């Protein structure tokens, strides 16, 4: 067994990740509580009633949601400005997809995780998974989703926030809410997988741990992020 650890995340990345995670969960839960309409209610009336009960009133709930959202966006903005180069590198990394490798990875890994290797073999596929970089294709797609959804959520959120302050037309707020809901919904769909993979799946336990320690075992790196591992190894 190789117990050698490889540095993967610095402190800043770890903090922003967990800040992001907390905000995202909090905003999703409170945001869901802001929908209260018997014709829409995604999970039933009990949730908005519960949330409004916890926060005392619907107005407090919306205010908390707004100000946490604004705070989240502001912190991110500062983070990006302060770590501009790293942020750019991150964006470049997550938005660079290699169609062949990443598509195969997506298909095979999904089957492997849900149905297992045997099923894959039965389907006539090898269990060979294409090698991945710093992020695997799944992580990249989820990252893309969160970056795009996050941006749209911030923009639509701000539109709704300023609607009653400066906007003379009601239409932007109406569409913003529709889009805000759509984006939050899609992100939540991705988030469920992300949370499972990170926190529950045994497979990715080292990655989960690395989000606290900043490092991953060499083995893990080689198997899961082979391209990145090579890159790190080859670095002088």
């Amino acid at each position, binding site marked *: 067994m190789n117990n050698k650890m490889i540095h993967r995340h610095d402190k800043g990345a770890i903090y922003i990740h967990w800040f992001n995670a907390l905000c995202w969960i909090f905003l999703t839960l409170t945001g869901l509580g802001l929908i209260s309409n018997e014709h829409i209610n995604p999970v039933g009336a009990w949730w908005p009633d519960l949330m409004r009960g916890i926060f005392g009133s619907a107005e407090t709930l*919306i*205010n908390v949601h707004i*100000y946490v959202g604004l705070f989240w966006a502001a912190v991110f903005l500062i983070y990006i400005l302060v770590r501009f180069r790293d942020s750019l590198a991150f964006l470049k990394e997550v938005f660079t997809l290699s169609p062949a490798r990443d598509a195969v990875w997506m298909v095979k890994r999904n089957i492997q995780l849900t149905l297992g290797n045997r099923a894959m073999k039965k389907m006539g596929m090898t269990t060979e998974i294409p090698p991945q970089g710093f992020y695997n294709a799944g992580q990249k797609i989820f990252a893309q989703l969160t970056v795009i959804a996050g941006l749209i959520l911030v923009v639509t959120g701000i539109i709704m926030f300023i609607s009653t302050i400066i906007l003379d037309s009601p239409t932007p707020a109406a569409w913003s809410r529709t889009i805000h809901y759509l984006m939050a919904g899609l992100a939540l769909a991705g988030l469920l997988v992300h949370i499972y993979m990170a926190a529950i799946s045994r497979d990715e336990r080292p990655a989960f741990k690395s989000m606290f320690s900043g490092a991953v075992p060499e083995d893990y790196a080689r198997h899961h992020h082979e391209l990145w591992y090579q890159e790190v190894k080859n670095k002088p």
Partner: protein
Amino acid sequence: MKDKMPPLSRRKFLKTSLAAAAISAGAGSPLVKSLVPRAHASGARPPGQITSHYTACDMCFNRCGMIARVQNGVITKIDPNPAFLKSRGMLCARGNAATKHIYDPDRLKYPLRRAGKRGEGKWERISWEEALDYTAEKLLEIGEKYTRCGVMFIPGSDMQSQFVNRFAEVFGSYNITSHETLCLLSKNRAYLDTIGEVPYPDVYYSKYIIVAGANPFEAFITPDTMDFFEARKNGCKIIVLDPRFTKTAAMADEWYQIKPGTDMAFFLALCHVIAKEELYEAEGCCPVNTYGFEEFFLHIRKYTPEWAEKECGIPAQDIARIAREIAAAAPAAMVYPGRRTSDYEDSTQIRRAMAITNALLNNFDKPGGLLAIREVGVKTPYYDVPWYDDNPFDRVEAGLVPGLIDHEGSFQLMREAIISGEPYPIKGWFNFKTNFMQTAANRNKTIEMIDHLEFIVNIDIAMTDTAWYSDVVLPGASFLERKDPVSALQGSSACACAVFRDPVVPEMFESRSPFWICKELSKRMGLADSFDFTIDEYRRQQVDGLEGAMEAMENMGVYYNPSKTYGIYAGSPLKTLTGVKEIFNQRYEASGVDPMPVYRRPKQPAENQFRLVVGRTAFFTHSNTNNELLTEFMEENTLNIHPEPATRMGLSDGDLVEVKSKAGQGRLRLEFTEGIEKQTVYTATGFGALSPEMSLVHNKGASISELLEDYHDEISGNMAMHETFVSIRKVA
């Protein structure tokens, strides 16, 4: 489960949090400012306790009881006083708009003295001291040069008008006239000359009412307007005669589009049927309790319904049927006396015909008929009127018409006298809250009159057209800021009551009440003794002997005198010459006036000419239109015209036309309606102000005072406003 009252609104939350942000950001960055709209940033004061104050409305002449709600020293809302029987616990649109009367951006703030030519609009601000000194000096100077009667006084129709009246009398002028001389004096004359007093219609208990020459559903009279509906619930039938399809007409049981000015024909024919078919009550009414019934019987023989149909356009069989119906309903039936009767040159005679119809219905002093004046018990404190040796014998327009009403006179005839300087000169004008420049027919003649005057002082709340042509303008306090004496009111059979006003809020700016002004002027003119009292002392004298009156007015906003309502005369003689109802009037005969109404066909407009009639809506009073809450219903007046003649002349709905009479001209937009007689046009009062400081009605529409020619009722001298013919030309 749902919060009844959100404890903290998002906007408040936002405001406070953004304010905190602004402070921490080093105060007022433009971004933050732009995020906090002014409307939200201001008015952050916590809501104060709401207090309620009784008062009486002054948005028209009805004096309805109201409760002003005050918060943080500002009147935020005015509600009706539910205990106020005269107004049946209601408040109309105008009363509700009183908040914009007191908080009118056009309000006068301090005394002004004219600095340019009259009407030029150049003013200098002066102190009250200077304004009062100057006014006293000018009035004394005119009194010295032209006698005390050389000043015309217009005391207004206000709860403090009695002080202006007192001031006029102690100053020594009997040339006091009023807005009423443009209004109801011909009606008053007719009833005075028929039953000896001006009655109140008991609409509430009536079973049959003919409304002619009145529009009580738009021109509110309390409690009559409301009582029509209570009466109708109890089976009362309402017949309306009007060339216009007014709202009264729109809600009547029957509406007849009578030809303008022919009402007398209808009523004479009505009397004809009642007399001929002996529908009157022979025992208690005719001929026993009337004077001249026999002569009248002969007089009306020719006035058959068939004849009347040709004159007034109402089918003979309807006239006969209405006569039978109303006689059957008598005495709980009436011809509604109406209010503004300043319409035709024979308007007193027209109302005499109505009053005689009422006499035949035997409805005076009876439920559902016409009520005698009830006792309220409010006294007018006595004062000495000094004698001025050099004063002329009588008021300036005395004798010009046979039926001039004492203490009222006729503004129109006085105006003629001022222009002619005959029989003696009038050179001063003391005016309180009356706007003849906007209300009196022939504005150009009023301007001509003003050219003959040496000094005009005007007390008003805003720069009316009349103030605009004055020399000294004194800012009056609004009724909500004043302490007023007790006023006695009769509300039909509902009540005989008394009210006063205490200030709801303090006087704004440098505004002052007429009482204070008269008191200050009297000190400067050696008449201090006449105003040596306070309002409280005055009130006590007014209600002296009326037990509980003061307390009731304080605690309930009104005092009711449980005085007799019906049968007040109880067999004792009426206040007429003969002591009975005078169908035949001997005084008229002696003055060379028809002792019984004689129908004369009204003069008719030439082809392509129209008779201009005027009136008002339920939301305006005369020239008091400059109110933001009310102009929203009508931003400018239009000319109502029947589409048929208009189309014939090539005019379309909405066209801008020039309306021209012999007196003046103005521009109005056409408004087509089939609800108007074809050779009649109508426009509302209160627009086309000359004063730019009447900002909502200046350069909006046209003023009736500009368009109307000046005719007057031949008996009372009341103005006659429906005798003007206009031509209409499309403005290119």
